[in-house]
């Protein structure tokens, strides 16, 4: 009797194993990258399970008490409204600038709208390929000034509709009454990009990113991503990762540049200095610069709306793969091991930012003539991370997508893809409406 019962139990268990095994195999519906790890945890242990308007402002999960305390302590630096100070000329905010606080453009830590105060223009002389600075202005137009000063130019922005998409026309008039014409001065509107997962992007080993680069398209797949090389704040040569055209290598450098170029605030040259690069007392102490850098590095990224096993994810991600979107918007990366990392949670994470952080030629439609001092061509753009994409409008209702916010919807953004992405765009346009909706639904739950 006993042996008979035992056999039945064992057979039952075997049936259980087979059923589970078959269940797993039936889930192998999606592309390979959706099976390793959990794409719902877009930022690994730092994933924030919050898809409300505060999603981007929430401190990352996985921080220990000391790290979380420091994050909360440094949070106000990002929202601090700066003002001009009594002291040497230019002390404090400005005199010319684009904004007076980080948060005024990075609305709720998300994108800015393409309007004055939430976006800015990078500029260059058209002659010579867009690498020369504009006399008296440089590489960025500051359209605001403190009281008693004039901005570098006044800007008029007009959106021109063309075939369901729109393009910006801008007019720059200088204080002396003369215009900076479109023919002579190339201008590239840049909305503030979202602040999520910055520490994690910084922690991806350079070698991993370079391994994906293929500047001469040696594998003949039509994709030729290439790295940007910049001099980091410590003088070392590193791969650029931040900004629409990847012109900063580190969060610290990006923050210092933003203080200087976007707000006219000088930063201390080092931890033991109170002086800025221009020899005058620094507007922003090293402590504050370090603080705002820390705050940024310890922001997480939101979990996807759907679990990885949902049909929305399996259907959408198959299409993402088929259309070759994943060739540039590489779905998953890993972060390295850095004993000096500001937070332990940054180390050894599998993350899902959907970017290779490389430059790609996006075609003439997105070419605005600004080549960022020769670090890239005017038609090249860093692959934008797609994590949190579905949250963009939740956080800031009327934002747009792409570098200048021209795309009012994710679909419009896809339709602007050209150059290396032209085939993918064509393939998207050839999809049935049903399949388009499936892809967009998956993107919307990121």
């Amino acid at each position, binding site marked *: *009797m006993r042996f008979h*019962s035992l056999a*039945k*139990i064992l*057979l*039952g268990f075997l*049936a*259980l194993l*087979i*059923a589970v095994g*078959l*269940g797993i*195999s*039936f889930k*192998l*519906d999606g*592309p*390979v990258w959706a099976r390793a790890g959990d794409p719902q945890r877009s930022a690994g242990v730092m994933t924030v399970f*919050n898809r*409300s*308007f*505060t999603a981007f402002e929430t401190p990352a999960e996985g921080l220990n008490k000391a790290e979380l305390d420091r994050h*909360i302590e440094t949070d*106000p630096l990002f929202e601090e*409204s700066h*003002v*001009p*100070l*009594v002291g040497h000329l230019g002390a*404090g*905010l400005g005199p010319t600038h684009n904004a*007076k606080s980080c948060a*005024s453009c990075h*609305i*709720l830590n998300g994108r800015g*709208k393409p309007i004055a*105060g939430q976006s800015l223009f990078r500029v260059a002389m058209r002659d010579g390929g867009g690498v020369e600075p504009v006399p008296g202005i440089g590489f960025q137009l500051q359209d*605001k000034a*403190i*009281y*008693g000063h004039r901005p570098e130019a006044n800007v008029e922005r007009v959106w021109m509709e063309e075939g369901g998409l729109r393009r910006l026309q801008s007019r720059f008039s200088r204080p002396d009454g003369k215009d900076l014409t479109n023919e002579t001065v190339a201008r590239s509107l840049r909305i503030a990009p979202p602040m999520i997962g910055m520490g994690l992007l910084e922690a991806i080993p350079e070698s991993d990113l370079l391994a994906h680069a293929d500047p001469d398209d040696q594998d003949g797949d039509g994709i030729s991503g290439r790295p940007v090389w910049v001099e980091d704040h410590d003088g070392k040569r590193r791969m650029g990762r931040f900004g629409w055209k990847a012109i900063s290598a580190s969060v610290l450098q990006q923050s210092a540049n933003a203080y200087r170029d976007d707000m006219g605030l000088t930063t201390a040259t080092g931890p033991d200095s109170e002086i800025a690069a221009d020899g005058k007392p620094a507007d922003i102490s090293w402590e504050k610069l370090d603080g705002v850098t820390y705050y940024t590095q310890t922001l997480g990224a939101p979990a996807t709306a759907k679990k990885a096993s949902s049909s929305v994810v399996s259907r959408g991600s*198959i299409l993402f*793969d*088929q259309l070759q979107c994943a060739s540039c918007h590489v779905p998953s990366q890993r972060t390295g091991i850095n004993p000096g990392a500001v937070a332990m949670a940054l180390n050894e994470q599998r993350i899902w930012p959907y970017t290779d952080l490389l430059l790609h030629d996006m075609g003439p439609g997105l070419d605005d003539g600004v080549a960022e001092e020769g670090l890239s061509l005017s038609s090249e753009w860093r692959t934008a991370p797609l994590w949190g994409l579905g949250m963009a409008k*939740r956080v*800031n*209702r*009327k934002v747009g997508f792409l570098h200048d916010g021209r795309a009012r919807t994710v679909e419009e953004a896809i339709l602007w893809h050209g150059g290396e992405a032209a085939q993918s765009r064509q393939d998207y346009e050839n999809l049935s409406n049903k399949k388009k909706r499936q892809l967009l639904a998956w993107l919307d739950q990121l």
Partner: protein
Amino acid sequence: MKGIFRIPAAAKKGTLRCAHLFIGYFSLVIFHNEPIHSFLMKRISRLVPLLGAAALSATIASACSPQSEAAPTDQEVSSALVNDVVLPSYKTLVGATEKLNKALEKLVDDPTSANLDAARAEWKAARKTWERTETWAYGPAETDDFDPNLDDWPVSTKELAEALSEKDFTADKFDDLDTTGRGFHGIEYVLFGGGDKPVEAADLTTQQLAYLKVAGADLEKNAKGLLAAWSGPEGFGKADVEADPAKTVNDILEGMSGCLDEVANGKLGGALEAGKGELESTFSGNTGADVVSNLTGVQVAWEKSRLQALAQDKDSELANQLTEELNSAISKAKALPARLNDKLDDQATREQVKELMAAIMQVVDTTGALQGKLE
């Protein structure tokens, strides 16, 4: 590499068949197996009276619960937030800025002490109506720049001093000022004076009076803009909040804890650390009143949106805890000394502020716990 593991759709039905077979087999194994069968039967026979008692008490409890009405749905909370909380609050704000504007105009026409006092009183009244709305400042207040235009901080005293020292103060000069030279605090700075002693009516310069006139009108304009942004079929109220009720409940809780956190750590904590210059509304000594208004706004959002009723239905213990803790924090806030900035160096006051901060953070924790329950 692409799609090599894709299984034809027809085979998916196999999973279901497999599951059915498995469940069937497992049941057979359990119930035809003598030792397992008798084991379960013994347990079940003991459980039956317990289960019966539980079912009975649950029925009695639900029948006798203090709910006189059914708990509100997400849709109802979302509608109540827009129509019973937000829109009325912004209408009140507009009304208050209109009154302030009138009082400022009267002061400018006739700068007497009495008119100055009246204008200051209207500023405080208008301030109260604004600070109440902090909890729902997500949306157009944040994303359409109404918040900075109404309430930026700190005041850019250098720029204001420069602008007001020039011969004539005009609307154009006002436009040249950044938001740190306008709004509630710009007006406050001029109306109450930026020093330790409040300014006298007779000392107000023509430029300062001109400033007050333009600034008052600008404040009213922005208040009206904010109301408009939430109103109508395309407004944030209908097109965003009511259109997506599932998210409203969480958004309100986020708004509540965001406001509470800012009050505790930003307004109070920041000032404890850096001194009275850091106190928002330091010129008028109004910070304590601001805090009471902020907390009252949290309470209004909690109760009037019927979120409290919804939460009570899901977890009455946590909901009641939140209500009690919030009441306690409001009481503590009301007990703060009238002019907080005068007392910030006083040890007893500092202790009082710290206690208030702790009380507020407790509400934040409970709100977080409730969010977890309501997900």
